[in-house]
């Protein structure tokens, strides 16, 4: 990357002749003046742009792409699949009755220098079981009864019931190591306390986040970079310009329409991302009519949406189950494919009110996506009125169960289809914001069956039941996966994104 | 020389210099000057081959109406025309032998203020409002003498301020123009003009914007300035009285040309050009018996429509129909001690009114016992002056302070006073546009101040008003006919009847009824004032209030309007309240006159008596201040000193005391406020009225 300043200087000569402010440029373009907040990688440091907001509590998994830099988790999955890689846990043994797991922790240190101990895991589990502070770990930890420290580096976790191995692994993959005395939402709100590859140097909300190599990181030789700086952008276009002009070395969470202009000059990396799901609120008319929901589910043109809204990036899904998961049954994509005739037929039989209001979030693409759905619904005689909403207002009404229908994201189900029950629109209880007290008992049972199926046959059966009940219930109709996109300078390699969309930065390097 | 008398007449450092007698080498010679402007309607020649010269020590008055080119001539000569549409300036403008127009602009500028200086019409706007007055004068010095130090310049400015009669010059130096009265501003402008002892002094309507008493002071000062500097003076004015008082020679301009030039005495005595003669004849005068004015018919010429013949021909009472006047433009030829541009010069003198031959057509003064149309008793209007955090009233301005008035049916009351005396406040109170603080007003016997709702609306129909500025008093978006019909519309008169009434009125006020549908913009000032008069008369009022109705009009038009007002009154028997600062105009119009000073009436009585033998020293001083258009009676005047005082200042005793020439030290004047008392057949508020001769 040492040639970058030279590049600026060369381009200066070009611009000096053209630019009206030529007189001002010589001094200004002199890169590397002290106090320069410049991007431009200098061998072992990188600047990355992102449009996401940041926080430091690993129990809040949403939009925290950098979180894997601060924390070690019990295990990692190798990229592209679900092969386990020891991380915070050196080894682990699942009890033969599938009702416990005994974990041996790696001898490693937190950033503050203290050794990681079994008590930290015990405290962490306790928090995950606290519905008031466990945040997104509450639901995945629901099968756990308690955690006990066996010795300093061994911890035993007991379950309420026999649990599928995948559920345990997915849980270990999601479980961060946090010092016991820092492990609360309040303590982690503004600064991290982990053992991950990078330490926090500086955090200026809305402006920048600077990370520096953790010299004590247990994985020797990593991270490869000395420093990484995230710069926060509000405007995607500004971030793309910054990448193009060399102000940043990479741009995270690009929008789909940026890919075309970047792919010739930059590496565009795709992460597994989340899923776009069309939700219909079974708690209120007209969607309290299951046959109506089933009819409309056939009128969602996944291919068209992927092609027009996502620029061809992404795979179709029929339900909030991620392709690659053991429970993903692609035959549903044909049996319940887009078919307006079938939809019209079903709708006719369903009866009921033929109009509804669709809330449209401010996410890029959300409105085009809903317009495509609106057009197709119209063709079968269902009138959809679009109501654009600001991001927070959208979220607020979604959680309050006030939206009639909308497109929202669902997280990756990892290797356990039962994780479909994460997220408030898919809860197997009356807290489900889309179905409320109408959540089908068969769904609750199927989720439980998935989580507790410990042999292959039971799993097959449970997954089939789950698929059927979700497709028949038709309140959450899959559209497609929504990949996370990043643009990087060609010189950068080692970029990876894990199954939760967390950036894996410890292998990042420049040529 | 009371005005400037407090200072030394000449700065001690100044070299005494001999005042050259004219004729000699002319200090200013303008020859063949032509100025043209391009306008959307075509080229306008505003100045057409004008030639005149002034010698050192001589005063030349250039007389003319709006658009005659009298100001444009000098502005062009000095390169001060700032309009963007100047198309052509040709000819010569020599100052001490050097043609200014031949000089490059930069060099010409260096002559200004040094060789030739100018004094402008509106002194308040002639000074930069954000620069200290003293610095503005010093700038005139330092522009021509770079070596001058700030300290020396300041000393010189203080001398100049003393010379022009600005009291407390050291304090005044650091003040700003808005802290000066109009008269004081004009003194400053004069100081600026004479700072570098110019060879030529040009004064463009120097007293037009000022009150009569101040006008007299400034004229005195101009005389002093000319004497001090020995400069040749060009006095541009429309006021023949000023000409008679000030000038040695006069040049009369009409439509961009000089039509007559001669020594002042000859001009007034034996005018050769019919225009000169007509102007003189149309003036209302203080010194002669009143009658119908000899108005010049028609309007001042439109320069865009230049005819081949004499520009004055359409209005000329002599040449009128003779073919040579229509086809051949008369040139200026020497005649009788001067020069004149007329095919029939010599006949003009017959146009002058013969004092003895003039019929005494003054209508018999209407008897005082005619039924009162307007009766005002003890009227007062006090304005609070608010200041400070809570806008508390810290002082009051007694704009009108206990005024009694009576206007009889069919008669005219003239209300005279200087600016700020409260005459406009009084007029507006009569319409109840202002709510008086105390007193009563009766219109036709009905109490105006107690009236409300429909009653008030009906009473307001009985009192109508004509304003000074005919350009802003008409609604520019309504046709003149609709403008005139407005009071009738308010009174609920149906449309067809309104129309009929308006057309009749147009006939009466001398407007062509077929023009009723035109917009005001198509009319001249005089015609607009006729529209305003028609509007005032439309609801058949009992009284019409005229607030300076002719002061915005040219002299020739003024007479037409005054005659019209007379005729209308004779015809309809409407009463007039005629508010004006111009005593000659009031004399022409009024049966009874009331003189106002600081919110109170100081003298009132029959016009003839009051003008002949004023008993209040203020009335006397006002009459003395007016320049009389007769060079044979240049008087040694006793003008008032100082400015009209501030109405917020609390006074005890006689309010005129501070400016009274009778001796302001008398105890009675300070102790007791003089009440109006009957003296010599009129009412006067002066303890010593008997002493005023």
């Amino acid at each position: 990357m040492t040639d970058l300043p030279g590049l600026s200087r060369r381009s200066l000569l070009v611009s000096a002749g053209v630019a009206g402010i030529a007189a001002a440029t010589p001094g200004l373009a002199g890169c590397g003046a002290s106090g320069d907040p410049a991007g431009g990688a200098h061998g072992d440091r990188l600047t990355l742009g992102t449009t996401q907001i940041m926080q430091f509590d690993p129990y809040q998994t949403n939009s925290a792409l950098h979180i894997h830099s601060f924390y070690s988790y019990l295990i990692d999955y190798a990229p592209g699949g679900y092969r386990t890689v020891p991380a915070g846990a050196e080894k682990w043994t699942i009890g033969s009755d599938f009702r416990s797991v005994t974990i041996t922790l790696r001898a490693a240190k937190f950033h503050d220098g203290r050794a990681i101990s079994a008590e930290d895991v015990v405290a962490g589990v306790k928090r995950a079981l606290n519905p008031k502070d466990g945040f997104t770990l509450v639901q995945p930890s629901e099968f756990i009864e308690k955690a006990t420290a066996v010795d300093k580096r061994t911890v035993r976790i007991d379950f309420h019931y026999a649990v599928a191995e995948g559920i345990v692994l997915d849980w270990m993959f999601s479980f961060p190591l946090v010092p016991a005395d820092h492990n609360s939402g309040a303590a982690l709100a503004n600064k991290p306390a982990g053992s991950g590859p990078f330490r926090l140097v500086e955090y200026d909300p809305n402006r920048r986040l600077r990370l520096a190599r953790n010299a004590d990181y247990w994985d020797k030789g990593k991270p490869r970079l000395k420093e990484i700086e995230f710069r926060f952008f509000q405007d995607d276009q500004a971030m793309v310009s910054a990448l193009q002009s060399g102000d940043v070395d990479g741009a995270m969470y690009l929008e789909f329409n940026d890919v075309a202009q970047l792919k010739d000059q930059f590496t565009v990396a795709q992460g597994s991302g989340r899923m776009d799901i069309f939700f219909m609120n079974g708690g209120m008319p007209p969607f309290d009519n299951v046959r109506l929901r089933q009819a409309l589910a056939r009128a969602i043109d996944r291919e068209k949406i992927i092609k027009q809204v996502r620029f061809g990036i992404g795979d179709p899904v029929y339900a909030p189950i991620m392709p690659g998961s053991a429970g993903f049954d692609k035959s549903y994509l044909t049996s319940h494919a887009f078919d307006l005739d079938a939809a019209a037929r079903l709708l006719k039989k369903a009866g009921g009110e033929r109009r509804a209001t669709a809330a449209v979030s401010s996410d890029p693409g959300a409105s085009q996506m809903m317009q495509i759905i609106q057009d197709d619904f119209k063709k079968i005689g269902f009138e959809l009125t679009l109501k654009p909403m600001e991001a927070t207002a959208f979220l607020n009404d979604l959680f309050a169960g006030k939206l009639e229908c909308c497109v929202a994201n669902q997280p990756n189900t990892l290797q356990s289809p039962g994780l479909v029950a994460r997220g408030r629109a898919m809860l197997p209880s009356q807290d489900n914001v889309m179905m409320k007290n109408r959540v089908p008992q068969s769904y609750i049972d199927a989720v439980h069956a998935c989580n507790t199926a410990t042999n292959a046959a039971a799993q097959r059966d449970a997954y089939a039941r789950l698929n059927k009940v979700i497709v028949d219930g038709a309140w959450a109709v899959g559209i497609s996966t929504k990949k996370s996109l990043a643009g990087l300078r060609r010189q950068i390699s080692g970029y990876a994104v894990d199954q939760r969309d967390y950036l894996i930065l410890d292998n990042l390097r420049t040529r | 020389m009371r005005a400037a008398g407090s200072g030394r007449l000449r700065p001690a450092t100044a070299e005494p210099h001999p005042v050259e007698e004219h004729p000699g080498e002319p200090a200013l010679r303008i020859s063949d000057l032509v100025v043209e402007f391009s306008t959307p309607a075509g080229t306008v020649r505003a100045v057409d081959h004008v030639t005149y010269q002034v010698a050192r020590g001589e005063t030349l008055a250039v007389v003319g109406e709006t658009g005659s080119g009298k100001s444009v001539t000098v502005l062009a000569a000095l390169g001060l025309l700032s309009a963007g549409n100047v198309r052509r300036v040709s000819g010569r403008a020599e100052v001490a032998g050097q043609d200014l127009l031949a000089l490059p602009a930069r060099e010409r500028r260096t002559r200004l203020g040094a060789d030739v200086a100018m004094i402008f019409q509106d002194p308040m706007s002639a000074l930069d409002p954000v620069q200290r007055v003293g610095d503005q004068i010093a700038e005139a010095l330092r522009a021509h003498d770079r070596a001058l130090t700030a300290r020396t310049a300041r000393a010189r400015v203080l001398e100049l301020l003393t010379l022009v009669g600005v009291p407390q010059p050291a304090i005044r130096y650091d003040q700003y123009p808005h802290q000066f009265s109009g008269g004081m501003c004009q003194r400053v402008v004069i100081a600026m003009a004479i700072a570098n002892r110019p060879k030529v002094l040009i004064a463009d309507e120097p007293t037009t914007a000022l009150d009569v008493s101040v006008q007299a002071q400034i004229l005195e000062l101009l005389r002093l300035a000319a004497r001090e500097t020995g400069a040749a003076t060009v006095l541009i004015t429309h006021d023949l009285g000023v000409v008679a008082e000030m000038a040695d020679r006069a040049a009369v301009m009409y439509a961009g040309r000089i039509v007559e030039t001669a020594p002042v005495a000859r001009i007034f005595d034996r005018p050769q050009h019919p225009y000169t003669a007509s102007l003189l004849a149309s003036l209302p005068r203080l010194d002669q018996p009143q009658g119908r004015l000899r108005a010049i018919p028609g309007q001042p010429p439109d320069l865009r429509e230049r005819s081949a013949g004499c520009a004055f021909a359409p209005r000329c009472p002599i040449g009128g129909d003779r073919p040579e006047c229509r086809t051949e433009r008369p040139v200026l030829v020497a005649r009788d001690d001067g020069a004149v541009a007329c095919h029939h010069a010599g006949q003009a003198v017959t146009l002058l009114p013969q004092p003895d031959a003039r019929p005494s057509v003054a209508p018999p003064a209407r008897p005082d016992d005619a039924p009162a149309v307007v009766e005002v008793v003890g009227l007062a209007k006090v304005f609070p002056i608010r200041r400070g955090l809570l806008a508390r009233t810290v002082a009051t301005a007694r704009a009108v302070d206990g005024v009694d008035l009576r206007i009889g049916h069919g008669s005219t009351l003239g209300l005279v006073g200087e600016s700020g005396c409260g005459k406009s406040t009084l007029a507006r109170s009569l319409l109840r546009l202002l709510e008086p603080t105390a007193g009563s007003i009766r219109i036709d016997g009905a109490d105006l101040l107690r009236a409300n709702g429909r009653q008030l609306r009906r009473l307001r129909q009985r009192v109508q008003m004509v304003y000074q500025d005919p350009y802003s008093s008409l609604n520019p978006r309504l046709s003149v006919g609709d403008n005139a019909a407005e009071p009738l519309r308010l009174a609920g008169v149906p449309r067809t009847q309104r129309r009929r009434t308006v057309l009749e009125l147009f006939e009466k006020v001398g407007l062509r009824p077929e023009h009723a549908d035109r917009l005001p913009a198509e009319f001249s000032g005089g015609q607009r004032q006729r529209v305003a008069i028609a509007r005032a008369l439309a609801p058949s009022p009992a009284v019409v209030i005229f607030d300076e109705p002719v002061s915005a009009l040219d002299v020739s038009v003024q007479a037409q309007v005054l005659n019209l007002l007379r005729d209308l009154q004779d015809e309809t028997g409407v009463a007039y309240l005629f508010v004006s600062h111009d005593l000659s105009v009031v004399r022409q119009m009024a049966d009874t006159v009331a003189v106002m000073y600081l919110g109170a009436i100081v003298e009132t009585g029959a016009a003839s008596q009051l003008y002949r033998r004023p008993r209040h020293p203020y009335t006397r001083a006002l009459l003395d201040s007016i320049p009389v258009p007769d060079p044979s009676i240049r008087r040694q005047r006793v003008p008032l000193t100082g400015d009209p005082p501030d109405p917020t200042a609390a006074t005890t005793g006689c309010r005129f005391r501070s400016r009274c020439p009778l001796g302001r030290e008398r105890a009675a004047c300070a102790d007791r406020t003089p009440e109006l008392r009957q003296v010599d057949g009129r009412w006067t508020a002066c303890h010593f009225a008997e002493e005023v001769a």
Partner: protein
Amino acid sequence: MSAYLLRRVGQFLVVLVLASIAVWAMVYALPGDAATVLAGPDASGPQIAATRARLGLDKPVVVQYLLWVKGAVTGHLGQSFYSADSVSHTLAERIPATVQLAVLGMLLALLIAIPIGTLIALRPRSLLARLLHGYLTAGLAIPSFWLALLLIITLAVRTHALPATGDYVNFWQHPVAALRWSILPAIAVAVHGSCIIARFLATSLSEVMQRDFIRTVRAKGVRESRVVIRHAMRNAALPTVTVVGIQLGSLLGGTVVIEALFNYPGLGRLLYTSIGQRDYAVVQGGVLFVVVVFLVLNLLVDLLYAYLDPRIRLA
């Protein structure tokens, strides 16, 4: 003068209190709160309630407002929901950036506007004046975000001459870097401002040049340059000062669009983000700062007016 100042300060406080209530009411009227944002889409009901309680958002709005007022009176503007920093600290980090950009933008605008306005006023018929008129028309018509994109594409993306993003570097410590990182956003904000100011200046200057006193000054024999600079300009400055004040006020209030496009860490971007995140205390603090800026600028403009115009000063 002191009574005047006292009255102004009184007005000040009233406006401030009203503004704070209005801002509070408006932000609360928006659906959703910081707990919703913080907890994220995957959070459960009890978690959100817990977050709400932790942030104090479970109290009645009026109580929250009064608590904030209580803090504000003692100098604590509260705490951002999203960072460990106090609102005062957050603002204190942003305000210098915004002030620097605003001042730089305004200086540029004046640098462009004064010669253009003067030239158009003095030589309205010249070819150059006509060309500059074109600039003024274009500058007013072109939205500044479009200009910003144009600058980014030509000077940053295509040629790499300047960074596409802006950033705040203290000018007094690193003047070159500071200019480098703020010159493009400064140009983007300056062009529009310069057109408005130049128009005002041209109009009032040409009006002043027609006034009688200019003729008097010329008649004194004063050089034309001095006529313009010392007499005409000073008078023409009066109405222009007001426009400059308003312009500077809106720049100091933060230019949301420009700051977003250049990713400049100014107040506008902070407010924009904070409104989206329902970060009430930051929004409140930021808006009140903007209100104070406007009030102070207004006062300064009035004082400058009084300084420039003795008719006001000595009335």
